[in-house]
Structure formats: C-alpha cells, structure tokens
C-alpha cells in the first residue's frame, strides 16, 4: 500500500499535486474537530473584519470567524459529497453488475427502473423534500436522496462492461470451476469495473456538491448547518459583495476550486493506475 503511494508520488505528477491539494483541504476540514468556536453561534466576533493576523480568513457579517466557519463548512460538504458518492457507487455497481451478468428479465426490470430514475427531474423532487421536511432535513437525508438519483447513468456504464465480460472465456471457465454468480461478479468482474467507479465517483461528487450549493444558495436546505452552500447563502443574504465583504465569498470559492481540482487530479491518476490495461503493463505482460 505504502509502496504504491510512494510510486505514484514519484512518477505521477498529477497524483502528487492532487494528493497535496486534497490533504490540505482534509486537514483544514479536520481542524473543525478542534474548533474553539461553536459554529452555530452568531456574533462571537467582531463582524465584517477583513483577513488579518487575528482572524486569518476574516469575519462575516454575522460575527462569525470565517476560518472556523469554513472549516466546519468544508467538513460537512466533504462528508456529504463522499456519502453520496459512496452510496450511489454501491447501488450502481450492484445494479450494473447484476443486470449485465444475469441478463434476461433481471436486466429488463433493472434497466426499466434505471430509466425511470433518469427521467425524473431531480430538482423539483429535492425542493419537495425540503418543503415536506423543513428543518428536519439534515445532511444525511439529503445525501440519501441524492444518492438515489446519482446511480443510473453509471449503472448503465457498468452494465456495458459487465456485458462484455460475460462473454469472455474466463467467465465461462469460472462457471465450470463452480464459482457462484455473486463470486464471479465481485471477484472476476469488479476489477474491470473499478476504473469506471473512480472516474464516475469524482463526477458524482462534483455534481452532488454543486447541487447542494445550488439548493443552499436558494435557501432550500437547512441553512443552519454550516456548509459551503449555506455560507454562500448567508453571504448573499447579507449582500456581501455589495457591502464589500469580499472575503466571505472569495475565500470559500477558492478553497472549493482547490478541492475540486485536487479530487479531480487524484481520481484521474488513480484511475489510470488501476485500469486493468495499465496494471497488466506493470505486471510485465
């Protein structure tokens, strides 16, 4: 494990940069565990202070220190994005592999469900959830709902790989070696599907975080939970740019871009590394 990371750092510049960026953000987010400030309190500091040695990221119009506020925000946003990505990966792998390998009516039913989810417009549904649940809508529930919409496209991708693998000779040999369908899917086929998982996990994270930010800015989520989106909501609410409190918007956006960039570079370089073709080349085939 360590040697793999070491190799990647040494030979893959994308991985190195991505790792650095992501680590910075993650450390930043983890600092929230040691925060001396409760993020839900307002007016704990002098409002509208620009970045200085005392307040590294300045303070916002609500009298909160931006540094700790953003630390919590990124912790929540990151964990939100990761949760959505994880849950939707699991669903898409499950659906894609089953449907591709078993075929027949299983395939038909699953793809039918898949297409329904593709057709349903997600935005109105999310707003509906907000209106029904109001302040009971916590991050996890939102993540769950988004995960239920984040799997269809990727399931189809995985299904097409699984379809191809079904007809390869090692699958037939595995059947005659007595391996059960589940074993074949998880042990023989999954490695071929991993590159798709990685690539789509990244896209999924960007999508879900972007959607969350959109909802938050418009006020359709629980605005009392500090996330990147709600930070921007409050900034908008207090007309931050008009008033001149530029650091309230600029700093979270910069950090957000850094985060996306880091995740993207990581995903791309890891993807290339675990791709079966590159693995075979490294093994010396």
């Amino acid at each position, binding site marked *: 494990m360590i040697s793999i990371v070491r190799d990647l750092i040494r030979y893959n510049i994308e991985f190195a940069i991505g790792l650095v960026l992501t680590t910075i953000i993650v450390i930043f987010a983890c600092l929230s565990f040691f925060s001396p400030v409760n993020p839900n309190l307002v007016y704990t500091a002098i409002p509208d202070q620009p970045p200085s040695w005392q307040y590294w990221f300045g303070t916002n119009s609500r009298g909160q220190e931006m540094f700790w506020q953003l630390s919590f925000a990124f912790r929540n946003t990151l964990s939100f994005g990761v949760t959505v990505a994880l849950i939707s990966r699991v669903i898409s792998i499950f659906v894609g592999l089953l449907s591709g390998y078993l075929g027949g009516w299983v395939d038909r039913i699953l793809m039918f469900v898949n297409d329904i989810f593709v057709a349903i417009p997600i935005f109105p549904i999310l707003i509906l959830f907000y209106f029904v649940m109001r302040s009971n809508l916590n991050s996890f529930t939102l993540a769950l709902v988004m995960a239920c919409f984040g799997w269809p496209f990727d399931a189809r991708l995985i299904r097409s790989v699984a379809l191809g693998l079904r007809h*390869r*000779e*090692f699958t*037939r*040999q*595995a059947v*005659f*070696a*007595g*391996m059960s369908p589940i*074993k074949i899917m998880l*042990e*023989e086929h999954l*490695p*071929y599907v991993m590159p798709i998982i990685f690539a789509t996990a990244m896209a999924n994270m960007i999508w879900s975080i972007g959607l969350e930010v959109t909802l938050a800015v418009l006020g359709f989520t629980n605005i009392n939970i500090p996330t990147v989106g709600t930070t921007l909501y409050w900034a908008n609410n207090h007309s931050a740019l008009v008033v001149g409190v530029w650091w309230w918007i600029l700093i979270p956006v910069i950090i957000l871009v850094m985060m996306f960039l880091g995740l993207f570079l990581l995903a791309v370089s890891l993807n290339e590394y675990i791709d*079966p073709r590159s*693995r*075979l080349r490294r*093994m*010396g*085939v």
Partner: protein
Amino acid sequence: MTALLDVDHVDKRYVLGGVLSREHVDAVIDADLSLQRDEPEIFTIIGESGSGKTTLARMILGLETPTSGQILFDGEVVPTRGSGKKRHAFMAQVQPVFQNPFEAFNPLKRVDRYLASTARSFLGISDHTAVDAAMDQALQKVGLSLAEVGGRYPHELSGGQLQRAAIARALVCNPSLLIADEPVSMVDASLRMAIVNLLKTLRDELDVHVIYITHDLATAYYISDRIMIMQKGRVVEAGPARAILDSPQHPYARLLKASVLSAEDAGHGRLTPAAELMRECNELAKRGDAGKLVSGTDGRQVRVYSR
C-alpha cells in the same frame, strides 16, 4: 445403459431478427454420436468455421439447448443453465477445455484460484490442505505441480503450461468426459505436442473420454479413435479415425485431406489446390440435396446423395 453420452438426432436452429422473423441459421442438422462408458476414447469432431462443431460442443456442455432431438448424459437429459443441483452434478462429470489459454484465465487473477474453486465446489472439501492436495494431484497428472503454478499469474506461464493448467483444472473433479475445443491451435508448435500427448495419456491411463474438436487433420490422425467430419452443420463422414483419414470417401472429406499441407517433400512447393474436388463440393452445395448417411463396411458412415 452403458452409454455415457448419447447425442440423438440433434438440430440447432438460430432464428435471426425479431419474433416474427423468418430468417434462420441452421447451425447443426441431425447430429448423432454416442460414447460408451467402459470404452474410453478420443472422439474427434473435425470441421472448418461454420461447420457447427463448436455449437455441437456447446450443446453437449449444456450451454445451449437443442432445437430438436436430445442429448443424454448417463441416461439423463443434459441440464442447461440454472437447473441447480442437477447442473452441478453434471458439471462435476463433464468439463471443458477452451481454445485460448490466455483468455481462459483472468489476467488479473492468479491461476490456482480456479483449481481451488473447482476442488471446493465439486469435491466438497473446504479444508485448506485438502484443497491443496487435490490441486497438486491434478497438476501432477498433467506434468506440472502446485509448486510451479501456485501463486502465479497467467502471463508468468507459457501458453503450453497454461493450457496444461487448464486441463488440470478440468481434471480436479475427476470428470468422465472432457470437451476440448481446439486446445492446441493457439499454443506454440514446440509446446503443442506435449498437450496432444497428454490427451492420449488421459485416455490411456485415467480412463477419461475426450471429445477433441479441431480443424487440424494431422493431430486428429495422431490421437483419435473415432472421428466425425462436419460441413455446414451436417455430418458428412464418421467412423474409425485412421480408416477415414487414410482413405476418405465423401468429396468434402477428400477435399480437406487434399488441402492439408504436409512437410514431406519439403522445398518442392506442392501447392496446387485440389480444384477438381473443390468443384465437386461446390456442385453438391449448389444442388442443396441433404443426402443421407449410409453405413459402410469398415464401420464408417458416409453421406451420399441421389445422383
């Protein structure tokens, strides 16, 4: 009944297009063969691409269902996919060996995995040492050993070793019938004979029946007991291997033999295609007459046509 395998007037027709389509392909027409349990033999099916030999093999393995006719193994109809326990018991007795050893193993996984799985699944053993012993035993039968193969990936072995490992995998569960579909066509010439000789050993020392599918008449001559020549889905000549290959009677069989390149008289370029025979075969194909199988004196069957 001592018949191990009985293929009884089997047809396989593929319908192309949708439900209302009339287009079809007759992959196998009226195929008939049987193997007796107490006479282990190497039965060769010879044909070119499109002859139906692979389809027939797939039907015997239970991967396809015949459109008409039936295939009986040990007196029972061959269970096709998804029949649970019966299929499992069947697979314990009938095992395939595929053409491309490098495709038959997942390049990302170790080779012994498949042997271990076969042992666990069909021999009903789960103890680590018992599984290793079963694997080693099977590998010894093909001239390899667990020490050589254990922990290796497919690309670390040569084509010949890999194919032998594939045969060992098929032997782990002590099957009575091995179906080898072009097992040596993708193996280097210098390693080929080891595998062909191995098939002979399986028959002579381990009492395993082998159905050997190939397009190579020379290796067929070398190891077969009986042979069946297929053309476009039909059996054109069948019977004792040496007799048929020494003097084939059906025009297609004669054409095949005449087209084989031999190394005798090397350097003198015996390349004239058998034009006469090709013409004769084309005539027969054009006439579209199915003909019928007639038994000959030396135990062979030849398809003859009305003049």
